[in-house]
């Protein structure tokens, strides 16, 4: 009797995963549409839907967009939409990478900072801002390319320093990562000191934001983030097993060293791609996985995708707030979204944690 109950509960749980994912994707879509309404220029929902509908093949035959002003269309399609999509991509990327880092390191404090990935991106970005702020490489801003390469470079540096023979134990990885992280942020500090006029740009990049994201930037990072996230999701069950300890995962048939390498490279890749368009955005990579784990439980097969979607929703909302909060004071001023994520995210997390810490104490 009770045995059947346990089994049905279990299978009901796994079938519920699909429903949760569909609901979350729907929620993300709604948030994106609502966010298009947010901003200094007042554009009504009917206009927004008309503008969007016009872009969709077949649907555009039924949309009467003659009443929509061209300026509104430009604001929605060229300014707001890329910015919101950047929020979706970056939020999903940072949260997904956070899940991977925490899973591989079996450490709740792990995020993109531990492997020096964020620090590497910061050094790359700071250098490029300092020396030639408006240069372009491959049609992309130099800052982006430099941040992306800096992230990957520091990840490989840490990985190779931490290597012991053919193995890369997580403890040495963590220690090397922290050391490299400190070193690289010292370099950033040095650059800030000598920056002079460019200091403002560097600081703004370090806090993160989407104020000048263009479609070009979205197309550049989207492949990295989508492909990286999808491949990382292949390893969701391996992440579950890695949580049992590397040796046990090995006994249960996981090729531990390969799984670790693939996962860390992918997480660093998508983090690098994300921060290259947004700058450093704190909190999302560290806290979204925790918030999701509190609600969904520790199974990475559901934790990974839900974290990514919740990260996306969270960052889009934070960006909306960033745009709105300063509007009453000055139409052109806005807060960096990195400040909003921490300012609003941290109290929310503490509230949730206070409610659920009993089950979380491990």
């Amino acid at each position, binding site marked *: 009797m*009770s*045995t059947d109950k*346990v*089994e049905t*509960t*279990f*299978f009901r749980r*796994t079938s519920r995963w699909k429903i949760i994912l569909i609901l979350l994707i729907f929620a993300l879509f709604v948030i994106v549409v609502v966010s298009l309404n947010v901003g200094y220029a007042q554009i009504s929902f009917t206009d927004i839907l008309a503008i969007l509908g016009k872009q969709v093949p077949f649907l555009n035959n039924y949309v009467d967009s003659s009443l929509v002003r061209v300026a509104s269309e430009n604001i929605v399609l060229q300014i707001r939409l890329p910015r919101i999509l950047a929020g979706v991509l970056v939020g999903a990327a940072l949260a997904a990478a956070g899940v991977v880092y925490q*899973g591989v390191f*079996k450490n709740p404090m792990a995020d993109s900072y531990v492997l020096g990935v964020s620090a590497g991106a910061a050094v790359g970005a700071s250098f490029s801002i300092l020396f030639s702020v408006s240069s372009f490489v491959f049609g992309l801003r130099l800052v982006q390319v430099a941040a992306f390469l800096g992230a990957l470079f520091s990840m490989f540096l840490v990985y190779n320093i931490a290597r012991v023979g053919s193995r890369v134990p997580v403890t040495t990885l963590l220690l090397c990562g922290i050391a490299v992280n400190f070193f690289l942020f010292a370099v950033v500090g040095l650059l800030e000191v000598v920056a002079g006029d460019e200091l403002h740009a560097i600081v703004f990049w370090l806090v993160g934001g989407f104020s000048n994201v263009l479609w070009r930037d979205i197309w550049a990072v989207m492949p990295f983030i989508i492909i990286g996230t999808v491949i990382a999701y*292949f390893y969701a*069950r391996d992440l*579950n*097993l*890695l*949580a*049992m*300890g590397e*040796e*046990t995962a*090995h*006994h*249960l*048939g*996981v*090729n*531990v060293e390969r799984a670790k390498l693939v996962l860390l490279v992918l997480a660093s890749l998508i983090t690098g791609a994300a921060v290259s368009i947004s700058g450093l955005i704190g909190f999302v990579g560290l806290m979204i996985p925790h918030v999701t*784990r509190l609600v969904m*439980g*520790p*199974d990475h*097969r559901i934790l990974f995708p839900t974290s990514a979607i919740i990260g996306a929703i969270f960052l889009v909302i934070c960006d909306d707030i960033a745009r709105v909060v300063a509007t009453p004071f000055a139409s052109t001023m806005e807060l960096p979204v990195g400040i909003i994520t921490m300012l609003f995210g941290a109290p929310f997390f503490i509230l949730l944690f206070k409610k659920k810490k009993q*089950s*979380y*104490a*491990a």
Partner: protein
Amino acid sequence: MQHERLVANLVLLDLDGVECRYGSVKVLENVSLSLKGGDFVGILGPNGSGKTTLLKSISRTLKPHKGTVLLNEADIYSLKSVDVAKQLAVVPQDTSIGFNFAALDIVLMGRNPHMKRFQLENEKDMAVARKVMNLTNIWHLAERPINELSGGEKQRVIIARALAQEPKILLLDEPLTHLDIVNQLEIMDLVKDLCVKEKLIILAVFHDFNLAARYCNASIMLKNGKIFSAGSLTEVLTSENLKSVFNVDAIVTKHLVTNSVFVVPLSPQKSSPPKKCSIHLICGAGTGTALMKILLDEGYNVTAGVLNVLDTDFETAEFLKIPVTTEAPFSPITEKSHSSNLAMISEASTVVLTSVPFGYGNLQNLEAAIAALKRGIPTFVIEEVPIERRDFTGGKAKALLAELKSEGAEFVKDQNELLSLLNVSVDKLKIAKEERDRLLDHLKPEEVHKETKIRNKDEKNEEEKI
């Protein structure tokens, strides 16, 4: 031979000249084994002898510098992790689990090698998990988070996970550490059952010789990374091997109930300086066993007699290499052995008579004691059990005991009193007393507790003054 093993469709595990190192330190040297399904092998050895390393070299955690590990005649290090995990499961020594998974989730992780990358657990996986969780008695804990379980429950979850892999080889590294005695036996019975019925190879590290002896059908004993002894339990578990590998004196017998080898390790005791006088024990039926060891440790020369061969006291004396006047098994004492006993007594400076039961067969031992007294050798009589209850001669033994008393034998109520009278083992008595006080201390209510503490303190102060 190899061919036969393959035809029988049993899993095979062969180690050939395996050598493992940590850095430049050799921890395993030239280990060769050949096992097939149905073998239950206990790995014995002191700490640091390479037991865990041996398991690690088999589970592909530590690649040997030399030698090969073959699983079904294929090099285990050339196989894919997933394929090895379908055949071989490990129950590790310590288990820490990162996130708070439910017990059922953890057991289902054992199904990993049997699942495709995007497959979710299906009915079959669930059926296997339920089976192994019922076997290990944890199905009722299925939905409980792992970190809320007790050490023993956790251990059973880990064992269930290993069984969920449906392995052909099971490596157990001290699997019983966190389990109480009932759970230990349950788990070992379960593992033994799998070994016999499903023809698994079981390789388990044991610290308890007697559990190993009871369940294993073979054993290897490691010393400094080398196989010191291997074979059946009777071949491996000998007092000589235990002495040279573990440096412990042990009595090895067959257990009466389980009929497996039974080891009684004796605590390693520095013997006191020899006292150069000898004590003759008149005992039997196990009443002298404990005394022999204590008196020897105190440095006395101990002799005993007359004892029937195969008597417990006789076997102890043999083990402790005490000279004994013997009589054939289950036979009454003959005149010949009686007189040689008397000769032995005349060498002794003291005679001790234990609370041995008397029948017509050993009545002469009482007469020997009287003879000793008459020759002026001090004689102690331990009267733990009243003579009425151990006199099977219709009062003759009682009469002889009364005669002993009138001749001036010293009657004591137990072994401790005897030892204090002999003025030996003063230290040991003190330890025993402190031990007892400590235990009582623990049990006493709070106020009394304080008093004893103060008293103990006073005693200590006095000692210090002395």
